[in-house]
């Protein structure tokens, strides 16, 4: 018998007014797995993420995390708390999602109060320190306001906050996109370490195929709300089958790469076969 996936979505659909943003999306993530969603701007990636985390309700379809249905909005505070222990999200811009008045310690303590209500102050303090260590923030940085920290440091706080609830799945929606390359490399290593140590699963949304290759096992490619291609990340990137995926791959700058106008024109014409 195969193990129940940690996250499963089936027939997921979302309309905004008359516009279909997400159209019949199915995927699952095995426990401890890591799945990437790639695709052009507006293809529906963030809408999928927002539905999974519960920021936006599906028009149709089901979402199951850790064997529990979460397709409809949570009805009670208790249900919301339970769901928070299943899925957390880290956005691109940690600045916008962190309270400017709170230092990392306060931010983390707040999450712990909610999710580990039985813990005493000392246990919480110990856990805050542990989380700080896990994401590589020192004591001074843990006590600084977000304004006084660099983008990479703020993103570490956002990751620590997501981890504080001890979720089974962390959604990373362009979470490393705004970071400098050297800091991005640090955060990518950190994400790999955390997954190895805690067994957490990732749902990564990224425009950066190098990042996708580095930290995911499986990839789905979205275009106009639908999944047009899927498979192991290494295969999808090395042997893309859909013309659109090929164009996406060929658009990534690398040593010796020359940009061409034709690429974009191809994507306009490239229909899923």
């Amino acid at each position, binding site marked *: 018998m195969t193990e129940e996936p940690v996250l499963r979505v089936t027939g997921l659909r979302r309309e905004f007014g008359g516009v279909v943003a997400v159209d019949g999306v199915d995927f699952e993530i095995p426990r401890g797995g890591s799945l990437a969603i790639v695709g052009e*701007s507006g293809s529906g990636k963030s809408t999928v993420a927002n539905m999974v985390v519960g920021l936006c309700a599906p028009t149709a379809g089901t979402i199951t995390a850790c064997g529990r249905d979460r397709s409809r909005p949570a009805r009670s505070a208790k249900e919301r708390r339970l769901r928070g222990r299943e899925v957390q999200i880290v956005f691109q811009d940690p600045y916008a999602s962190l309270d400017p008045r709170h230092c990392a310690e306060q931010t983390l303590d707040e999450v712990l109060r909610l999710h580990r209500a039985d813990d005493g102050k000392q246990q919480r303090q110990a856990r805050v320190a542990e989380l700080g260590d896990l994401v590589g923030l020192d004591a001074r940085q843990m006590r600084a306001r977000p304004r006084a920290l660099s983008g990479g440091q703020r993103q570490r706080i956002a990751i620590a906050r997501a981890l504080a609830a001890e979720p089974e799945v962390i959604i990373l929606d362009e979470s490393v996109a705004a970071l400098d390359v050297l*800091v*991005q*490399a640090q955060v990518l290593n950190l994400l790999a370490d955390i997954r190895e140590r805690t067994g957490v699963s990732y749902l990564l949304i990224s425009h950066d*195929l*190098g990042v996708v290759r580095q930290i995911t096992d499986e990839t789905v490619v979205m275009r106009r709300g639908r999944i047009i291609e899927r498979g192991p990340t290494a295969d999808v990137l090395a042997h893309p089958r859909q013309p659109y995926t090929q164009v996406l791959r060929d*658009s990534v700058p690398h*040593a010796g790469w020359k940009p061409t*106008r034709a690429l974009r024109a191809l*994507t306009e014409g490239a229909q899923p076969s």
Partner: protein
Amino acid sequence: MTVPVLEVDRLVVDVLVEGEPRTVLHEVSLSLGEGEALGLVGESGSGKSMTARAVARLLPPGARTSGTIRYGGHDVRTLKGGALRDYRGDVALVFQDPRAHVNPVRRIGDFMTEALRTLHGVDKHTAAKRAAAALADVGIADGERRLEQYPHELSGGLLQRVVIATMLLTEPKLLLADEPTTALDVTTQAEVMAILDELRQERGMALLFITHDLDLAGAVCDRTAVMYAGQIVETRESAKLHEDPLHPYTAALVTARPAVDRAVDRLAAIPGRSVSAFEAPDGCPFAPRCPHAVDACHQERPPAEYVDGGLVRCIRADELRGRLAEEVAFHD
């Protein structure tokens, strides 16, 4: 190289940070010939935008400069009146966010033709025709319809092409492009880059291309300058930066990037973060993070030296040369 269009020599810029003058650029030197493209690559705060702003005479109030910025035989820093207006007519800027350029309540057509009508005295009808033709140049076919639209009706990629088309209407001799594709999709980025590259070649326009992506710079720039903490630490032929970097920071930039064609156990991530010039310690500003630092590195700021047709600021550049090439080769 042809006659330099732009020559920046030992430019130092101090700006007011919390009311105090702080150095953000330290002895930046670069030159750009007609039709040539130079990449300016570095992490956040390294001074890329400040360099472009100094060249464009758009430094924040209270800024002080020394050194020279030579354009057409004059020091740009001291241009006034008509000469400054002429200079501004020769130089165009494109920023990361196209929406920062445009007035959201005015039509695309009004935005595109404003400079032509007010500065160059072109009549409305002719200006509109030229605007539509410029849109065609950047791959926007239904230009006449676009001129009637408002900015919010266009995607980011389309609007960035509109901004580029607008810049080109006044036939600039020097284009300063500050991360013009950072906000775009990779496929759109490829197209915008191709457009910039074609226009530069066809019109002999000089291009200063700012990005944090070494590969992207290499795709359109003959040479690339790498910045760290307000100074240029290496300027080379773009291709050489990947194969045979002379500065440890350049090598770090190359090896930290995850590749599309393979995953590695761990990325080569050096600790710390990039700093601004005024936050950097004495000596080599990269020393606290440099895996090759020795005691001498902390003593004085390494001078710029010519090596292999390029410029580098590292006291160990000669002796490290083969090792850095190995580091980046291992990465490939």
